């Protein structure tokens, strides 16, 4: 690589007095001064959250209203700060999605521990846990900062589903059962 030697020009008289530079600087700051501020007045104005923002982790339902979590506890095991605590539970025979077999009885995410790493979302085989647009968690007690299952579904809402994995499984099982007879 060629080395280019830049010639150092000695300062002119005007430059040695600093004054033209100071005046130019004053003009720059004046231009900035008359520009409108770029600050967002946060509590009054809220920022626009882009799609794919990874904020507070939430649980989602599929478009049929079925809770997607099957309480496999992978997220609980992968969670680096151990923020997730799941109590697994059975799905009763009488419910119409009992073919899913399991659902969480209780699902808690301690937002005082959560580090928003997104590993839970990455590891979830059911696409049931999502980091979504909420960015501000506040509370006055430690208990308030623990999101329980109800709160998590309230925050998560419904996300579109392209697989309907469990519906397909159910149809397949029924078809096989039919074929066997």
């Amino acid at each position: 690589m060629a080395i280019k030697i830049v010639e150092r020009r000695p300062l002119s008289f005007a430059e040695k007095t600093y004054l033209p530079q100071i005046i130019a600087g004053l003009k720059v700051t004046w231009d900035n001064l008359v520009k409108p501020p770029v600050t967002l007045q946060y509590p009054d104005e809220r920022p626009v959250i882009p799609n794919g923002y990874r904020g507070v982790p939430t649980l989602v339902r599929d478009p049929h209203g079925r809770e997607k979590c099957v309480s496999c506890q992978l997220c609980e095991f992968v969670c680096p700060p151990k923020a997730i605590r799941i109590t697994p539970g059975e799905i009763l025979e009488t419910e119409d999605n009992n073919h899913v077999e399991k659902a969480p009885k209780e699902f808690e995410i301690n937002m005082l521990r959560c580090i928003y790493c997104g590993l839970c979302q990455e590891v979830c085989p059911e696409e049931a846990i999502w980091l979504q647009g909420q960015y501000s968690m506040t509370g006055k007690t430690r208990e308030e900062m623990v999101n329980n299952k109800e709160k998590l579904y309230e925050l998560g809402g419904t996300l579109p589903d392209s697989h309907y994995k469990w519906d397909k499984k159910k149809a397949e099982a029924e078809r096989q059962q039919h074929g066997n007879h």
Partner: protein
Amino acid sequence: MIEQILNDLILSPAWYYTAARGLTVIVILMSIAAYSVLLERKASAWIQGRVGPNRTNHPLIAWIPFFGNVLTRGGFIQPAADGLKFLFKEDALPGHVRKTFYVLAPCIALAPVLISLVMLPFGELPSGQIITLCPGADIGVLFMFAISSLGVYGIALAGWAANSKYPFLGAIRGSAQLISYELAMGLSVLTVFLATATPDQDNALSLVSMVKAQTGAWNILYHPIAALIFLICVFAEANRHPFDMPESETDLVGGFHTEYGAFKFGLFFVAEYSHMIIGSSLFILMFLGGWHVLPWLPTVGTGIFATLIGLGSFFFKLAAFLFFFVWVRWTVPRFRYDQVMRIGWRVLLPVAVANLLVYFIWYALKG
């Protein structure tokens, strides 16, 4: 009637009137200092694309329909909050300081500034009398120079009493800088003395006669180089950017006031801003026509209105000058210590001497 009351208020030699006048001037100076802190915060915010303090309010004021909102958004209650904070903070006394001098230093920093106030003229009454605390004194400028340079004792004492290295370095820098720039300042002002001291004028050193000599062109038009040197020296004397050697947060933590907190720090703060106010007032009186409205247009209106407009124009110039201080601070980076010394001794002093010589010869030839 009104003029009689005003004359009593402004000119009566009775001690209670004098005390009231002194208190008024100190209160005005303190409020200007407090609000120049607000100006500093607001202007720096605007320059940096921010909004600045706009939340502080008091229920009583926020309750006023439109005005309260304007006051809150403009941050006009912020200085009161800042002052109260300084007042109510724990006034810690570090264990390693020299206690007497440590407590004395902030007072010594502020007192000279307040003392030099007595010589400032603010305006002219319809009767031709001057609104000032000490009428008739004919050594105005000399007194101001002598007293306001005493402010550096506060800095030197603070740095020494703090008994730690950064404040000490700051204090040394402050003293060196003050000595270097005092000379150029005095020499630059001499040309203005030469212009004012016509043979029929016997108190050329008085600020009043300097202002009165500027009914036509302002001195800045006749003495631009002197004005520039004086301006630079005012920045250096007030320890403002780009000459804030004694403080220089980046290399000396907080400089001479590193070890100070709470109200003592507040005193240093007020002293710095008061220094700015006194320096700007001097510049305005000597080079920008004092209370004259425009060059070749000394007064507008008649009687008491002329006085009020004159006062208004003085304080407008003062506000503009304080804004200039702030503007420069958020524009120019700090000079290095050796650069400060070089500018002081090798540029400003010779230029001031040469400038003085030129004017000297010119006035001699003119007769």
